[in-house]
């Protein structure tokens, strides 16, 4: 039986969640990579 994972912040509107995720990943993973490059 397929099921949808709604465990996290399921109440937020989906586009908002996706944008927030994008921004957060950019802030963390991209920032860490950039620091590694330019340190």
């Amino acid at each position, binding site marked *: 039986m*397929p099921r949808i*994972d709604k465990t*996290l912040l399921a109440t937020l509107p989906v586009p908002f*969640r996706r944008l927030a995720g994008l921004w957060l990943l950019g802030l963390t993973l*991209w920032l860490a990579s950039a620091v590694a*490059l330019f340190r």
Partner: protein
Amino acid sequence: MLRPEDLRSRHTEPLRVKLEARFSRFRAGTRGLLLPLFTWPLLFDLVVEVVQGDSRGVVAALLGLGLPLLAVRQLRRGRVGDTARAAVLMAVATGLVALLGGKLSPLIALMLAGGAWLGTRLLYDGAVQEVEPPAAPAPPPPPGPLAESEARLARLREVGEARLAPVLVSMAAVLEDLSARPERLPLARRFLTVHLDGLERIADRLAAGAEPPEGLNQLLLDLQGAAEGLIARLRAEESAALDIQVKVLADRLRQEGYA
């Protein structure tokens, strides 16, 4: 008479449906491929670290490039919990890159890792229909108590000795009777062993070219008779048991005053 709304819906609805289907197919086809794009600085960093000879930095860059790829693989597999596992992989990648590559303090690396975890969950929670992993194939059922006897009988049939055929038919009837009522098996186990052993030896000798002795036909008739007798005896025992049940029930009804 067609109204303008009808005309419009007829022309726009299928297009909208088609576009939506195409978009969702595109989304499904490219799902997760965004994650490795965040690590593009590490590609240049890898070159820099190799040139500088910083092995720690090289390891960090390789992990930072590789772990998101693993996360993408997890995400695209789409089993239950794969989104959560992908998020953990992204968090580990971010933490290691910050700690080893960026030489940031462990606390900041931990915060960045937490942010990457949350970001991945926000991006992909609910985006993939996670399905249960396919169930492992069911183990074969344990062989029944008669499996061995049936196999031996089948082997005897394969020998194709015409003289044995009537006995084999009777034995097959015994096995059929026993498989329908396995509780009778203890009564017939010894019979099966003795008969099958004897038949196998006879079949082996005959197959090896032995001359059948005079008594063989009589022996085979005896074996056949014994098999039929066993079936009859088992049935008779059942009938006797039923007879007793009938008597007991009749007495009970009489005692209770219903009959």
